[in-house]
């Protein structure tokens, strides 16, 4: 089983690596979107899927990364690649500032504190007009070739995926899961829960930071309303939940399937697009809270580490 899984994985990876040379730019653009969602859903999974602390404002890290990269490119003349990577630094810094106090809050309080954080970062971005261009945002030069962004975003998705696998197979991962199952018991067992939650939170903020940085370059225009929508947070949560939270492959499966579904179905119903999404959320929460991977794991006794 194991060599087979590795073979399939490497085959898909090789296929994705040579794909941009053979397909239309529409497909390349679409795949960049999927990569981005895999990175976002996978990162959300690191904190919320593993520890059970629901981050309801994860898009704040994405937006912070996007603004960091855009400002570095425009005002400091950085090349786009290091500017995108720098997005992870500011996103993780924000996660440290907010996670240190707020990860002590349990249950819905943490979720709402994160929801508020997103609104606050957006308000601050709009307020500091000199740096961020206020409500009208920042425009970057249009990109000349999609392929570098394709590989960069693919790299982020792969990194988040690999990180998830490394974590779930490590002691660190087991400790995080123990926090999710019973935090008090974990603490009694001598697990430094506060520190571990913070580490997981920093890791889960770094991925969206870089993805946001590359997104800014790829979209070549960012503004506060489009960069910090609550809907983006919800989308990454639903993708993760649909695939299976707390699993390695879940976010990948969920992000890919829902992106394809979105492209094929929603795009045709422009006006009821959000209503369908609302119904989808209600459906996923009520009918399949464990997600595709969760159901498969239970039914076929698959290992926990997929």
């Amino acid at each position, binding site marked *: 089983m194991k060599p087979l899984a590795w073979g399939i994985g490497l085959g898909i990876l090789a296929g994705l690596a040579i794909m941009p040379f053979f397909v239309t730019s529409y497909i390349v653009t679409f795949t960049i979107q999927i990569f981005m969602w895999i990175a976002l859903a996978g990162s959300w999974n690191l904190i919320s899927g593993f520890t059970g602390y629901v981050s309801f404002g994860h898009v704040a890290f994405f937006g912070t990364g996007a603004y960091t990269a855009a400002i570095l490119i425009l005002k400091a003349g950085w090349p786009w690649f290091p500017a995108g990577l720098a997005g992870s630094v500011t996103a993780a810094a924000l996660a440290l500032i907010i996670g240190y106090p707020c990860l002590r809050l349990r249950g819905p309080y943490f979720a709402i*504190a994160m*929801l*508020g954080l997103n*609104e*606050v970062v957006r*308000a601050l971005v709009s307020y500091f007009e000199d740096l961020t261009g206020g409500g009208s945002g920042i425009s970057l030069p249009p990109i000349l070739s999609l392929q570098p962004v394709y590989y960069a975003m693919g790299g982020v998705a792969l990194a988040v995926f690999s990180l998830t696998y490394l974590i779930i197979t490590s002691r660190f991962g087991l400790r995080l899961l123990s926090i999710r199952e019973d935090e008090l018991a974990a603490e009694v067992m001598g697990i430094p829960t506060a520190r571990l939650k913070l580490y997981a939170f920093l890791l889960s903020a770094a991925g969206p930071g870089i993805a946001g940085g590359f997104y800014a370059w790829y979209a070549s225009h960012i503004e506060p309303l489009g960069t910090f929508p609550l809907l983006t947070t919800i989308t990454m949560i639903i993708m993760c*939940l649909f695939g299976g939270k707390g699993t390695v492959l879940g976010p990948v499966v969920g992000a890919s399937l829902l992106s394809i579904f979105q492209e094929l179905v929603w795009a045709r119903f422009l006006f009821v697009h959000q209503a369908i999404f609302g119904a989808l959320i209600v459906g996923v929460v*009520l009918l399949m809270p464990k997600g595709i991977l969760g159901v498969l794991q239970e039914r076929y006794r698959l290992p926990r580490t997929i």
Partner: protein
Amino acid sequence: MPIYITGPMLLQGVVSGLLAGGLYAMVALGLALVFGVMRVINLAHGTLLMLGSYTTYWLFALYGMNPFLSLFLSFPILFVVGGVLQKVFVHRVVNAPELSSLLLTFGISILIANLAMLGWTSDYRSVEFLTGSFLLGPIALSKPRLVTFGLALAITGLAFLLLNKTKIGKAIRATSQQRDVAQVCGINVRRIDLITFGLGAGLAGVGGSLVSVMFSIFPEMGQVYVFKSFLVIVLGGAGNYPGAFFGGLILGVVEGLASLLLSAQLSEVIAYMLLVIVLLVRPTGLFRGRI
């Protein structure tokens, strides 16, 4: 150009804040009841408020009904809407982890908001009924805000009468204190859930009716109220309903002063910092114990 803050300006900030706070308190009480009884944060609370606003708007635009009288319709209408939502969806997540209830109510919220947009377009609408203001010494009191404040206080008072003096109110308070024990004592907690959700939705609807005479009406108008209401709950302490009332007034004053002294944009940031500080220093709310 430096701006000098004078005493009357400060007083004006406090008074405007208090007037806004009365409304926050009433809307937040609805969210607090649902949260207290079911541990569900209803992210659709603001959307229900929006439905209340549209109720008032249509009654005013089509039949010329006095917006302040339409409260008597928006409350029962939203009570029924809330009851249906609870019966069909929300009761399934009452004992589930918070992720389920947050996502579920968010899904309901964008579903309703989107349908409202389809049906009524996303144009900004307004109910121009009462304008102008009284002058009281150096302070200007806007008439619609004053009337709204009075009505919000009266309705909050009625809600407290219901909570404190009636059997149903007692059952609601008991369920929010200890769900299991309440059930053992013979309270039908499912029925209490239903009534509470209806009551919460009704209060949101009344809030919407009152908001509609002051601000523009559009399908996504309600979003800001969810976070503000939650902030009020935290200030007052979860499950402490009188605390929520004072929490609303405090939030109003803080916002009023912040937009006077700093900028209206930053008042949200100040309110958020207030939330984080209170959660960290006094997670049980500013009014520990019951008032």
